[in-house]
């Protein structure tokens, strides 16, 4: 039974409530890193990692420190600090393991901190009532992981399309950001097809 609910959360965050294409979160990296497939993949993996960890830590912080001490109003400040620390960690790991990937992600790595999808997922975990729910911690982590996978999926789709757009014939003024937004709109329309699904 619980497994079914967890699976439902996973599917719903990847497809139905995809953070990028249906909730409009995390657009800056979505547009910034979607020019090439391999850097999109690296970025996506980093986001999945940070998002799952952020869900885990912010949940514990909220449930065991902020809530009992009645300092819930500090959640925005404390969550963003946790995320900043996690991003710093990921940055150091990637720099050690794969300097090439580190180079190609460039400025966007520290910018994961200001990826609103990550703070968004931390806040949504709280708003979805997971704190008082049974297996809340597990549900939060699954929501964070699913959100990251959904983000990666959108990023990879976009990167694949944009690599082809480079060579496509179109008016000069629509090149670059305008056509990217219109493509994102079409992708979002396609993802609307999932919204009738019930899990």
């Amino acid at each position, binding site marked *: 039974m619980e497994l079914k609910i967890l699976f439902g959360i996973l599917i719903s965050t990847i497809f139905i409530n995809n953070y990028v294409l249906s909730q409009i979160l995390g657009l800056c990296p979505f547009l910034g890193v979607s020019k090439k497939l391999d850097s999109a993949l690296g970025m996506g993996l980093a986001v999945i990692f940070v998002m799952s960890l952020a869900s885990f830590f912010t949940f514990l912080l909220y449930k065991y420190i902020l809530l009992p001490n009645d300092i819930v*109003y500090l959640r925005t400040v404390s969550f*963003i600090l946790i995320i900043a620390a996690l991003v710093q960690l990921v940055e150091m790991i990637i720099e050690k393991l794969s300097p090439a990937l580190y180079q190609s992600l460039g400025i966007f790595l520290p910018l994961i*901190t200001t990826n609103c999808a990550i*703070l968004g997922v931390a806040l949504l975990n709280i*708003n979805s009532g997971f704190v008082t729910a049974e297996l809340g911690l597990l549900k939060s982590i699954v929501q964070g992981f699913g959100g990251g996978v959904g983000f990666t999926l959108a990023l990879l789709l976009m990167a694949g399309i944009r690599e082809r757009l480079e060579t496509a014939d179109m008016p000069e003024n*629509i090149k670059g950001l*305008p056509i990217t937004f219109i493509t994102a*709109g079409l992708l*979002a329309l396609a993802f609307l097809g999932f919204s009738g699904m019930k899990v």
Partner: protein
Amino acid sequence: MNYLSEFTKGIWKKNPILVLGIGLCPTLAVTTSVSNAFWMSIAAAFVLTCSNIVISLIKKIVPSHVRIPIFITVIATFVTIVELLLNAFQPAVYKSLGIFIPLIVVNCIILGRAEEFASKNGVLASILDALGMAIGFALTLFVLAFVRESLGANKLFGFTIIPGMEPSSAMIIAPGAFFTLGLMLWGMNKINSRKK
């Protein structure tokens, strides 16, 4: 230093959304109605101005390698203030903007201006910079919300435009947001290329 140009650059020449392409998530997510866009602009303008003031005041005592966490903490503090104020005085707005109020913290415009401008310039210039950027942000939000609310909900400022017409609901959800901004950027490119 020319103070007037610090103020006006944010409105068109360096418009944060249309030219720099930052701060997109709140832009697209809250422009479902003009009133949401209005309150979002007010909240962002308050946070941007206050954080620019504080950051330009503390710029000399902040060690450069930990500056980003410090800036974010300053910004998050002002966002918390806005959150509490809105919750107390405008509960309906607080509810309809939802998680996008705390998400002002990660609005790249605010951190971007802190890093690029307030940490290098004086208080007066930083205030003008913040106000100009806030106006540019607000105008873009207004245009987007105007188009999306009138087409997607057949309403403006809460009043029905054409009674009995079926609105195209795709405009109010994510695809409409992407299309409208894409077309706006196209128009902007066209105007700019004609000027040259």
